[in-house]
């Protein structure tokens, strides 16, 4: 390709017309002043608040702004509809603001006491001891690691099942001598 040997003389003649296009009269006389004004304005550029900068993209991207509005609206509608059920008061008394705590018969300690038959004091002592001597310190049940037992080792005989009371109390009170069955309830 030899660009200089091309035959584009007519195109070049036509392009000569572009050189005769002139801006409005006085444009170049005022141009330096306009530049100087912009330079000065740049030096004292006002600080744009963060909320205006935040919403600036929305001005030139209406689709993005619309999508955001739909998303926010959806979250609000969902919260108003489904969120109401989650906010229903569990205890009417709490909802009314009469008492700041749950009823006594529903506390964990009282529930455990009703199951085990122990008094609150004894139970509290057991719980306190359990934190000092964790269950993991107890020896593993003998049937758990029986070679060749497979899943049969997990499936304990009916006699191995004891009442939860025995589990809780013995497992917490004397971990060293805890029965092998007590710590492996499901």
């Amino acid at each position, binding site marked *: *390709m030899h*660009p*200089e040997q*091309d035959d*584009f003389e*007519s*195109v*070049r*003649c*036509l*392009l*000569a*017309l*572009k*050189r*005769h*296009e*002139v*801006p*409005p*009269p*006085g*444009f*170049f*006389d005022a*141009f*330096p002043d*306009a*530049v*100087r004004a*912009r*330079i000065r304005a*740049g030096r004292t550029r006002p600080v744009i608040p963060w909320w205006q900068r935040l919403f600036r993209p929305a001005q030139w991207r209406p689709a993005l702004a619309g999508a955001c509005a739909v998303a926010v609206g959806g979250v609000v509608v969902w919260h108003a509809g489904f969120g109401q059920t989650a906010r229903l008061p569990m205890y009417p008394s709490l909802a009314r603001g009469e008492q700041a705590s749950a009823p006594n018969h529903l506390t964990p300690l009282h529930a455990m006491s009703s199951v085990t038959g122990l008094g609150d004091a004894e139970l509290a002592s057991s719980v306190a001891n359990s934190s000092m001597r964790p269950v993991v310190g107890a020896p593993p049940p003998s049937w758990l690691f029986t070679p060749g037992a497979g899943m049969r080792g997990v499936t304990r005989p009916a006699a191995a099942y004891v009442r939860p009371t025995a589990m809780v109390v013995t497992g917490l009170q004397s971990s060293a001598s805890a029965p092998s069955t007590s710590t492996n309830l499901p």
Partner: protein
Amino acid sequence: MAATLNESPPADAAPTPEDRLLVSRAQAGDLEAYDALIRRYQERIYATIYHMTSNHEDAADLAQETFVKAHRALKTFKGDSSFFTWIYRIAVNKTINFLKQRRHRGQMSLNDLDFNAEHDPDIVALISERTPHREVKLRELQERLNAAMQQLSDEHRMVVTLHDIQGLRHEQIGELMNCNVGTVRSRLYYARQQLQAYLADWIE
């Protein structure tokens, strides 16, 4: 006074002593010196941007931005190239960035033709062969020419603008557009070919 765009000083990349003096004064904070630099190059900068955008308002705005940005960066100007080349490069980059951001082709806002257009021998030869209504046809030709220019890619239009309209050399254009002379020649050839096809009814 309406200055014609073809009355700009010749495109010379060599730094002149006058430029050096004005630049050093402007770097020291002398706004009057920078004012003189603006007056010296405003027509060429504006014309380049105008021929690229075919829109007077965009060209005026971008030309102002070019000089504002140059003023802000004046401290970094080391004088390795001429001030002319340096500010031209700012204008070229700014214009190409602007055109890339402008997704759709903008509305043309064409300047008027000066009085000399009717007497330009090249133009007269083209017009007189086709119509006795010279003025009407000149305006029509101007619109067709600008529309054809807008059909070119930004890079091709820039090469045509700088070479065929502004009169810059291939080497200068390569320096401004960060490409080699071969690329400049190739782009120029392709752009002229495209223009010839778009303006076939005016040329054939």
